[in-house]
């Protein structure tokens, strides 16, 4: 780039880089997916963030300097970020066999997409900021950067379960001897008296009532409910180990009534209803859970409106 005749103005690049990097840093902090959870994970994310912010911020500088080769190479480098998604997915999929309450394929895909998108977001914030700085000066560029970061944050934080679904504590009890109920939602059949005792003594139950059609469509999604169980277990722990399949936290629909409500039963390590409800409410709504709010005849029922 040093071959250009005029001296390079570095300020668009510096400000753009800073904005892009900050945008990525903010989304790293607010991640509620328990990933990345370790310094090594953070380092790799930070490295990607630096690269992304640099690509975004240096495009305009190289274009202004009439270095079209450099600009082309930068767009090439940007395509490398496609691999981020694959890497994330692989990591999480491998972890799936090692954790007691699986995230589920839908949740993993959601996390992977989000991480990929956030790198692109950092890139775009850097690009917008550096363009603004280039043509309007450092002060306005900085302001545009801050606005871009805020807009990115607002639009990137998707809906949460708490936005669409009412979460309330419910009593765990057994009917007909061995059927586990949460409130009036039947969960499963527990054949072992030992486990039934355990559930009655230490179990916690939560009822999920959709606030509208959208919430109901979300709840009918199996992957979504698996994600909810995972978040619940991550928040209060679960008394489960290999060889205790009936002590798995479960999230099931109210069947065969099909009223659209769901129940969640869990044997927690820490008996903390507040933490449990908060974790469920903060579970992100999965992309795969956003399908067809009108296809099921059950969804057309009056009482759900």
């Amino acid at each position, binding site marked *: 780039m040093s071959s250009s005749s005029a001296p390079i103005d570095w300020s668009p690049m510096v400000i753009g880089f800073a904005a892009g990097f900050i945008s990525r840093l903010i989304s790293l902090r607010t991640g509620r997916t328990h990933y990345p959870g370790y310094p090594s994970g953070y380092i790799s994310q930070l490295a990607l963030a630096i690269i992304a912010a640099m690509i975004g911020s240096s495009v305009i500088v190289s274009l202004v300097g009439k270095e079209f080769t450099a600009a082309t190479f930068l767009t090439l480098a940007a395509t490398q970020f496609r691999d981020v998604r694959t890497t994330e997915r692989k990591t999480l999929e491998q972890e799936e066999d090692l954790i007691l309450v699986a995230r589920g394929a839908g949740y993993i895909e959601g996390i992977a997409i989000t991480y990929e998108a956030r790198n692109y977001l950092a890139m775009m914030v850097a690009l917008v900021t550096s363009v603004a700085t280039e043509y309007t000066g450092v002060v306005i560029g900085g302001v545009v950067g801050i606005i871009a970061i805020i807009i990115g944050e607002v639009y990137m934080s998707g809906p949460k379960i708490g936005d669409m679904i009412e979460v309330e504590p419910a009593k765990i009890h057994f009917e007909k001897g061995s059927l586990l109920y949460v409130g009036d939602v039947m969960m499963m059949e527990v054949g*072992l008296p*030992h486990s039934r005792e355990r559930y009655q003594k230490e179990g916690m139950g939560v009822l999920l009532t959709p606030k509208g059609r959208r919430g109901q469509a979300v709840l009918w999604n199996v*992957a979504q409910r698996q994600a909810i169980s995972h978040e619940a277990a991550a928040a209060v722990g679960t008394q489960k180990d290999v*060889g205790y*399949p009936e002590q798995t936290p479960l999230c099931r629909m109210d069947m065969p009534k099909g009223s659209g409500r769901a129940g969640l039963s869990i044997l927690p390590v820490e008996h903390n209803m507040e933490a449990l409800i908060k974790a469920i409410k903060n579970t992100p709504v999965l992309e795969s859970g956003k399908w067809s709010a009108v296809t099921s005849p059950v969804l057309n029922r009056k009482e759900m409106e």
Partner: protein
Amino acid sequence: MADAPTPIMFAIVTTRKESVHGGMAPVFMARDEPERDRIAMWLCRITNCIAHDLHNGTIVLTVNQASNG
């Protein structure tokens, strides 16, 4: 994922011999209900299966093919 895995009946524990016939699953006879529950629990813990009470003196133990433990 959306379809539940088909459970395989792994064993039958009963106190009422006349209510079950042998098939693909072995039948464990128990003298009384506490013994039946104990046998069922042991088998569950050993083989990672799930117990279902049929409420006629019989407990069936099933294993999910792709159980996540």
